[in-house]
């Protein structure tokens, strides 16, 4: 990242200029379905902060999980094809930044990992470019960032100015899971004690509840073959957040969201006295704090309806 890029982001925001900073944006499949509440709220929040997330044309699924064997270059083609789209947009001047913004933690991890592996290996890059001979050659010099990293570059004052409904009495435990943090070469924060969500939640006025389960994996894709194994992790993660004083947790990952939220049904089967807990996408809470139209939060897609909690705290109108 260059300082030039940072200052572009700041300039648009500070001047309150009508021209927004345009950033290439990779949504991923699930943000178009169960994760719509993450996408819509993030786009609205970005707009409020003077940024336009411009969706890559003809993007394809990133594959979610990086291949961990040393010999299957083939499995990096899908993520790299998306990086070709980023390069094209940037070369054509359709965006103001060469870095592609991701929201889904797993997309972030998969794209950044493949990009690092291929971008740093001329031979592999050539193999992939040769294989995708119908595409223009990828130069390997575009970058992958997460939305939280973009927020971190903004002037904190400018974010604070947008807070219209401070989340004063809401006790929130930020949940990180795995793919925003690990492995270290990919992660955006301390893998043992991440704090990047804290600052922003505090700016939103929320009471932030830290607890040691914030980095414990939710079981990930094991939710498909063994939902009860995942439900035990959900139970542990949410019960610890609850006993630390939290009323809700936040996440950036639609798989974490599914495991922590929808799997509460299986948790209740096994632990009837479990108290259900709303699971917010981080940007849903930002949208609430910014006083944006509740429609962008798509709370209808949350499994454990967070609206009663928000209304009880006077953070949402009765009829919204």
């Amino acid at each position: 990242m260059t300082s030039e890029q940072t200052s572009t982001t700041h300039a648009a925001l500070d001047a309150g200029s009508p021209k927004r900073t345009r950033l290439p944006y990779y949504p991923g499949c699930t943000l178009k379905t169960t994760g719509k509440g993450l996408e819509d709220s993030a786009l609205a929040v970005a707009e409020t902060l003077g940024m336009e997330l411009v969706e890559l044309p003809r993007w394809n699924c990133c594959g979610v999980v990086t291949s961990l064997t040393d010999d299957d270059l083939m499995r990096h083609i899908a993520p790299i094809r998306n990086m070709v789209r980023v390069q094209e947009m940037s070369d054509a001047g359709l965006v103001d930044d060469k870095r592609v913004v991701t929201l889904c933690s797993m997309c972030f991890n998969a794209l950044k990992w493949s990009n690092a592996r291929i971008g740093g290996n001329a031979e592999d890059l050539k193999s992939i470019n040769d294989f995708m001979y119908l595409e223009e050659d990828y130069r390997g010099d575009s970058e992958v960032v997460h939305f939280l990293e973009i927020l971190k570059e903004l002037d904190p004052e400018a974010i604070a100015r947008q807070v219209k409904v401070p989340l004063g009495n809401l006790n929130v435990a930020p949940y990180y899971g795995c793919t925003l943090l690990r492995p270290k070469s990919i992660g955006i924060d301390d893998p043992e004690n991440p704090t990047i969500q804290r600052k922003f939640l505090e700016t939103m006025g929320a009471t932030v509840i830290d607890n040691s389960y914030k980095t414990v994996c939710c079981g990930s894709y094991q939710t498909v073959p063994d939902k009860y194994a995942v439900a035990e992790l959900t139970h542990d993660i949410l019960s610890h957040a609850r006993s630390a004083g939290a009323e809700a947790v936040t996440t950036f990952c639609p798989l974490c969201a599914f495991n922590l939220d929808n799997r509460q049904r299986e948790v209740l089967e096994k632990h009837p006295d479990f108290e259900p807990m709303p699971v917010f996408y981080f940007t849903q809470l930002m949208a609430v704090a910014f006083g944006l139209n509740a429609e962008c939060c798509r709370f209808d897609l949350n499994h454990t309806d967070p609206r009663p909690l928000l209304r009880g705290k006077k953070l949402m109108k009765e009829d919204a």
Partner: protein
Amino acid sequence: MAQTIVITPKNETFLKRIVALSAEAITVCDQCGTCSGSCPMIHEMDVTPSQLMRMVQLGQSEALDTKTMWVCASCFACTVRCPRGLDVSKVAEALRQVTLRRSVDRLDIRNIPSDELAELPQIALVSAFRKLTG
């Protein structure tokens, strides 16, 4: 009295295959157990992650019969903590790949009830099928 563990050529071939697939220096694992202590899926495993590493070190192809290699969630909790800089998730993936590349799948979409299939998000299905089918 010093004991000698006999590593047969067959054991060695297996170890070399997993080392090549994972690109991990499996023989430097000193069995400290940090990975096992970090693993969120340990309750579902038949051998611990450190035991799995030991089995591969010794070239025991029985590692391929463990439940452990299938229930690893690739969460990288062990990866960031291993004092030897090893990555058990890569070893588990290499073991899975040996089986999957023989066209033996762990997950069959026909066994997932249709109501569950309808509810599971793409991100869950795509990742599960990438990890558990060939």
